């Protein structure tokens, strides 16, 4: 095997021209090399400044993703001396959704999937604010329907009480009853403070 390999090498050297055995040279430990002048290299402060500025921006921007963001209340450990180097205040980054513009074929739909809920909400609000007259009409309808819906939602006893109150109001409008406080309930609330009665201004 070895002899075959050597033969091949010789063949190449003969016909290729120039591929022979390497010429041995004496080994020098530290050869003299001419180095470029270090003082001639220009220090470009603008580049350094801009680079650090950009890096600072990215680090504080929403683009810098971190594994877990601990809120203040979440850290249940006892404060240790080794924690002194940790940042005490965690500033809140903006979310990615605020900057990224979805829906204009910038991003694949597969990646936009998780953010659909927020977009739907925004869309609904926008539609409501678009036609103010419709909104007002809807509010009116809701106001008309609200008392009924409230009655439906509450218990039967409360319904009865309210009906009684309504009846009283109708009676007040129609004819005056002489019964005084007799018809009123025991816990009737007439918005008066029973313990601190207001003076009539007699000066007594």
């Amino acid at each position, binding site marked *: 095997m070895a002899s075959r390999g050597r033969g091949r090498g010789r063949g190449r050297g003969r016909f290729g021209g120039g591929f022979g055995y390497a010429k041995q040279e004496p080994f020098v430990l530290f050869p003299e090399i001419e180095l470029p002048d270090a003082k001639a290299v220009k220090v470009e402060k603008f580049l350094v400044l801009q*680079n650090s500025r950009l890096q600072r921006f990215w680090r504080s921007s929403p683009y810098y*993703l971190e594994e877990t963001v601990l809120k203040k209340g979440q850290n249940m450990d006892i404060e240790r001396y080794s924690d002194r180097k940790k940042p005490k205040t965690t500033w809140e980054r903006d979310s990615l959704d605020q900057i990224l513009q979805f829906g204009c074929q910038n991003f*694949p739909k597969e990646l936009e999937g998780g953010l659909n809920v927020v977009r739907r909400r925004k869309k609904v609000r926008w539609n409501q604010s678009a036609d103010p007259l419709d909104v007002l009409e809807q509010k009116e309808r809701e106001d008309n329907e609200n008392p009924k819906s409230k009655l439906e939602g509450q218990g039967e006893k409360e319904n009865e009480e309210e009906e009684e109150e309504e009846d009283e109001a109708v009676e007040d409008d129609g004819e005056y009853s002489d019964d005084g406080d007799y018809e009123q309930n025991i816990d009737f609330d007439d918005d008066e403070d029973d313990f601190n009665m207001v003076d009539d201004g007699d000066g007594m």
Partner: protein
Amino acid sequence: MVSQHGIKVAVHIITKHFGNLVAKVCECLMRRGALTLQNIVRYTQLTPTQVKNSLLLLIQHNCVQSFILEEPGNCPPSPTFLSLLVFCVFLFPFLWPCTWVLFDNILHRLRFSKFLALLSLHFDKLCLDLLEGLLQHGRLSLQQMFDRAHQTEGKSFFFITYSFTCKGP
């Protein structure tokens, strides 16, 4: 094909700029070639939301390109086929949306300050601010650029449009 050291440099740049999570996704894409979202999640062992966010971010900064080529038929490509896509992405059409790292764009991130320096020689500060915004955010719509200029400098709408129309390269 990117060499090992090239990948290391690119990962270092991404780590410096966007953090470990994004760098992990980016490295996975560079070492394994074009991948689907499911495969990235599987290989990186991160949560799907983390992978989604980091991919969105990389696409925003033009470090990753997503693409989908549709063809009639419903046979999903095999894993070996996906690994072949490293070399022949556009020759073999497939069904699933994939992402692909743009290696040169990542290395260009080191030259951002040089771009700004060159631009400052030929254009005024307003143009410099606009380019800086684009470099910081990767891609911005016209409206976003207006908003940003208003917020940072308080410039009027007129000056910005003027620089867009008259002084643009």
